[in-house]
């Protein structure tokens, strides 16, 4: 286990936005990234308000401290954003903010992927076109599954 930054430790110990939203609701988009076999699964949910902004964001994460801190940071950042803004979330920003060591960069990638998947899920539910997306392979590289 690496020495984490104070911010990572704080977010790990007291993560924000833990929980679940109603997956069946048309207002809610759900995205899951990672896999249990690889040791990390992240679920991010967003609720889109009438103003087309993210009214709420929740997560549940099975993974290391960095993954949990990254989920908390990402969901907190999402709130109030439009979908277009949300899609610009950059995993490097999360990694820098948490001062993640190189072996933990993929945990921030995981958060990024879950957010994009949640956006796509909401769009699909609401009849909007979804652009095909290449899956980041950073995570596959880590898991020999």
């Amino acid at each position, binding site marked *: 286990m690496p020495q984490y930054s104070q911010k990572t430790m704080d977010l790990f110990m007291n993560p924000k936005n833990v929980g679940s939203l109603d997956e069946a609701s048309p207002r809610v988009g759900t995205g899951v990234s990672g896999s249990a076999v690889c*040791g990390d699964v992240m679920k991010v949910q967003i609720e889109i308000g009438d103003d087309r902004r993210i009214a709420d964001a929740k997560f549940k994460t*099975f993974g290391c401290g960095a993954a949990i801190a990254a989920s908390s940071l990402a969901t907190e950042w999402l709130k109030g954003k439009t979908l277009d803004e949300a899609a610009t979330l950059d995993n490097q920003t999360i990694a820098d903010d948490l001062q993640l060591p190189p*072996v933990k960069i993929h945990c921030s990638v995981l958060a990024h992927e879950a957010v994009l998947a949640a956006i796509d899920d909401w769009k699909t539910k609401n009849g909007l076109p979804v652009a095909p997306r290449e899956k980041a392979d950073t995570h596959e590289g880590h898991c020999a599954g």
Partner: protein
Amino acid sequence: MPVKTPIYLDHNATTPLDPRVLAAMMPYLTEHFGNPASRSHSFGWKAEEAVEAARAQVATLLGAAAKDIVFTSGATESDNLAIKGVAQMYRQKGNHIITALTEHKAVIDSCKHLASEGFEITWLSPDANGQVHPDQVAGAITDKTILVTIMAANNEIGTINPIAGIGEVARKRGVFFHTDATQAVGKIPIDVDAMNIDLLSLSAHKMYGPKGVGALYVRRRNPRVRLTCQIDGGGHEGGMRSGTLNAPGIVGLGAACELCRAEMATEGPRLTALRDRLASAILSRIEHTRLNGHPTQRVPNTANISMAYVEGESLMMKISDIAVSTGSACSSASLEPSYVLRAIGVPDELAHSSLRISLGRWTTQDEIDYTVDRLVKAVKDLRDLSPLYEMAMAKNK
């Protein structure tokens, strides 16, 4: 009673130095600083005397003759010397070595090194409890086999192998038997004659001695094992391991062996009781947990437990005032889950969820009870955070 933190429950990684061992070593770090190989003055004689006394202490713990003990820098070196030393010495006789998937990296990588030089390695699969059986070994021996190397006890799961049976099979077939007993020596009785062991690796820092010193038992009679030395030089240790002897470290190893020998009969049951108290409390108070390794054939101090739906590194962070280790990929440099747990068929999800808790000489019941309470709370908190737990519970509804 409040316990003092941090609590150390990672004794399979390394142990603290016993103050009595330190006291035995001190004079050899200070006034008796001589080189044991200096034959011409009292400084050398004093150091040599101490080294030979330590050699006898190590031998006594193993039921061996003192002259069969070769001092090394630790178990990694002992494993390398035993495996490569036999392979190179007996290459004319055969090129086949038998080992197992759950061995320590020092054994695995020594064997892989030899494979790259043309040796044939048979990698035996342990059973679901982690044991390799004598009949598996017997079935793998061919007329090209020169060495069987199977560990006495596993460092991650604590499973004890039936080494007496394996030794018997190897001896009957005229094949040398090496055992990496780093995690067994000092914890359970070992007798190299009764168990037909020809080579045995051990390390001081796993038994309350100092780091950087260990030994290799090399049988000199019935049958005699010869080794190609791996470190050339002044011909110390009967030519098997050159280099000025680490006299204070060796004195520490000797003292550590003596203490383990004297205390094993009381310390073994004490640790077994504490370890079982820990394991049964975890298994009964936390749902969806399982013990990895053999239910009974296990060294007294080790419990390896998977707590489903919770990732091991995050669990260790939650209980950061308690030092343990995990088989999760997230905490390994390679980002691979434990190969030992994989080899015994633990699904990867549960390998990521595993904790190894290894007790030691100063572990108290209060520490164990505190650890269980902390774990119960930490697992609950992390399951509240776990999408896998949520999915599993939804399915069960």
